[in-house]
C-alpha cells in the first residue's frame, strides 16, 4: 500500500507541470501585461523601465523557467502592485479559504450522506420525496443568490448573524464560526445536494445487489446490512463525486468570499486579475490547482482502501 501511495504522489508531478504550462500560456496570450495596470497617465519611459525592472521584457521561456525554479524553491515572487512577497499574503489568505471550503464540505457531507441513504432506503415514501425535492432545489440554486437571501433573513431581518467580515479562528472560535457558518452553508448547499443525489442513486443500485440479499439471509439486522455491506460499496461513486465537486467548491469560494467580504484567496484572485498583478494571480492559481490535485490523489488512494479490486488493479 505504501508503494502505491508513493506512486500516486509521484504521478502528481507531471500533472502539476502541465498545469503550470497551461497557466503560463494563458497569462501570455492575455492582451497587455502588468505595465498596463499602471494606468494611462504614466509616461512611456516609465512603463519601459517598469518592464525591465520586473523582467517583463525577457522572452517567454526564460520567464517561465525563472518562475518555475523560484516556485520550487518556495519563492512565489513579489506583487507588482505592493512590492511585497506573495508568500506572506498567501499565508494570511489561504487559511480563510481553506476553512470556508472544509467547513462547507464537512457540513455538506454530514448532511448529504445520511439524507441520501434515508432517501434510498425509504424509496418512494414521504422522506424520499422531501429529500429529493430539497436536493433538486439545492442543485439549481446559485450559491451567491442563496448567500444574499441568507444575509437578508438571518442578518437583516432576524439580526442573528453578522452579514460579513472575518475573525481569525485562533482569536475567537465562536466569533469565527458565527461569521463562517452562512458562507459555508451558501457554498456547501449545491455540493450537499449533488452528494445527496449521488448517494441516493449509488445506494439504490447497491441495495439491489445479490450480496445484500445474502447479508439479509445471514440474519444480519438492517442497520448492519446498510452501514456495513451497502455503504462501503456505495461509497465508491460517492467519494468520486466528492472529489470532483471539490474543484467546483474552490471556484464557488471566489464568489462567496466576495458576497460575504471574506479575505480569502478567491477574492484575492479576482482583485489581482483586475489589477493585472500577474505574479500574484499565477501563484494563487497554482496553489488552488495544487490543492485540487492533492484532493484527487487522496480520492484515488481512498478508492484503493475502500475496494480491494481497485487496489489490486493498481498493483499491476
Amino acid at each position, binding site marked *: 500500500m505504501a508503494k502505491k501511495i508513493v506512486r500516486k504522489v509521484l504521478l502528481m508531478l507531471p500533472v502539476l507541470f502541465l498545469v503550470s504550462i497551461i497557466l503560463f500560456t494563458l497569462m501570455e496570450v492575455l492582451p497587455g501585461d502588468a505595465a498596463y495596470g499602471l494606468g494611462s497617465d504614466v509616461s512611456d519611459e516609465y512603463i519601459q523601465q517598469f518592464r525591465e525592472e520586473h523582467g517583463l521584457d525577457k522572452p517567454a521561456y526564460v520567464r517561465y523557467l525563472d518562475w518555475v525554479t523560484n516556485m520550487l524553491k518556495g519563492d512565489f515572487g513579489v506583487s507588482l502592485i505592493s512590492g511585497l512577497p506573495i508568500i506572506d499574503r498567501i499565508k494570511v489568505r489561504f487559511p480563510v479559504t481553506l476553512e470556508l471550503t472544509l467547513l462547507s464540505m464537512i457540513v455538506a457531507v454530514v448532511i448529504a450522506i445520511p439524507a441520501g441513504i434515508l432517501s434510498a432506503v425509504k424509496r*418512494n415514501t414521504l422522506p424520499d420525496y422531501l429529500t429529493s425535492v430539497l436536493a433538486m432545489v439545492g442543485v439549481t440554486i446559485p450559491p451567491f443568490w442563496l448567500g444574499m437571501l441568507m444575509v437578508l433573513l438571518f442578518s437583516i431581518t432576524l439580526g442573528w448573524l453578522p452579514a460579513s467580515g472575518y475573525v481569525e479562528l485562533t482569536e475567537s472560535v465562536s466569533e469565527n464560526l458565527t461569521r463562517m457558518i452562512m458562507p459555508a452553508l451558501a457554498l456547501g448547499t449545491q455540493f450537499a445536494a449533488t452528494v445527496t443525489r449521488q448517494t441516493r442513486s449509488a445506494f439504490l443500485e447497491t441495495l439491489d*445487489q*445479490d*450480496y445484500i*440479499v*445474502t*447479508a*439479509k*439471509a*445471514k*440474519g*444480519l*439486522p*438492517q442497520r448492519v446490512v446498510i452501514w456495513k*455491506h451497502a455503504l*462501503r*460499496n456505495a461509497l465508491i461513486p460517492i467519494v468520486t463525486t466528492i472529489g470532483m465537486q471539490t474543484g467546483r467548491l474552490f471556484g464557488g469560494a471566489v464568489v462567496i468570499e466576495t458576497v460575504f467580504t471574506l479575505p480569502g484567496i478567491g477574492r484575492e484572485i479576482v482583485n489581482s486579475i483586475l489589477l493585472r498583478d500577474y505574479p500574484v494571480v499565477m501563484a494563487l492559481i497554482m496553489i488552488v490547482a495544487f490543492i485540487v490535485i492533492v484532493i484527487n490523489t487522496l480520492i484515488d488512494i481512498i478508492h484503493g482502501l*475502500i*475496494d*480491494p*479490486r481497485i487496489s*489490486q488493479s493498481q498493483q499491476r
Partner: protein
Amino acid sequence: MKQETNQEYLLEIKDLTTAFLFDGKPVPVTVNVSYGIKKGEILGIVGESGSGKSVTVKSVLRLLPSPPSSILNGEIYFHGQNLLTLKEKEMQKIRGNKISMIFQEPMTSLNPVYTCGNQITETIMLHQHLSKEEALKKAARMLDLVGIPAPESRLKSYPHQLSGGMRQRVMIAMALSCEPELLIADEPTTALDPTIQAQIITLIKELRDSIGLSVMYITHDLAVVAEICDRVVVMYAGMVMEIAEIRDLFHAPLHPYTQGLMQAMPRINQQSEMLYNIPGMVPHATQMPTGCRFQPRCPYATEVCSQACPELVDAGDGHMVRCFHYEKLRKERVQNG
C-alpha cells in the same frame, strides 16, 4: 387456536399466496402453495422460469422486499412456529442460523469489498457469540469441510480472487457455519459449468448424509433432480402441480406438465432431430388463463379444464397431483407398458 401441523415435517408451507405489485395493484404470483420438507430430506422444487419457485422459498425467509411484494395469505410452520407472524428481530435469529440459503449467482452473492473470512465469521459471531479467533478457526474448519484447500489463507482472500465454484463453496460454508437444520439452495449450480456442478451436488449430498441436513433444492434441471432429490415438488405458473417421490415422478408422472418436462429432457440413447418442447409459454401473472393454469398448453385439456381449477389431490401413497385427468394418464402409461 390450535395449529394443525404435520409432525412429519421440519418446515411446512400452507396455502401460501404471495403477490407483487403490477401497475400499483397486488397480483398473486404464487397461489395456495402447500408443501413440506422432512428432516434429512432433499426436496427438489422444479418448474420453468417464472413458476414461482424462488418467490415461495424467499417468502419462507421473508427476503422479498415489501413493497412491491406482499404475502396475501398462508402460513409457514417451522418447529410449530408460524414464521410469517414472527417479529423481524425473531426472524433474524432464524435466518442464517436455523434456516440458511445459497443463491444462483456465486459471482455476485458475496460482498466484493470484504474478505471471505470476514463474511463467514460475521455470521458465526452473530449467531453463536464466539470470539473473533474462535470464529476464524470455525470458519477455516467450514472451508475445509466444503473442500477448499488451504483454508487459512483462503480466509484472507477477497471474492474476486476466487473462481465461481470456489465462491459457491464459500457460500455453502457460510450457510452451514451455524449448523442450520434447513438449507435452501436456489439454483446453486445453474451458473456453474458441469464438472463444478457435479462437485457441488456431491458436496450437498455428502453434507446431508454426514450432518443430517434438510435441503430444499430449487432447479429447472431434471437431471440434477434425478441425481440428488428424495421427493419433488413440480410448480407451474405459481401453483403446485405435482408432489411425488423421485421414483414415482420419473416412472409415473401424473401431471401432463411433468410429463412434458420429462419429454423435453435430452436423451443420449434416443435419436431424433428435434427436442420435444411444451408448446406455448408460462403465462404472465396478470394474464392467467381461467380454470387450470396449464390448460392452454395441455394436450389432455377438455372443456372442464377451462371451467374450473382442479384441486391438489392425493392419487395414492402421498403422490399429489393437480389435474382432472390424472387417471387417464395413469391408464395410458399402463397400456403402453
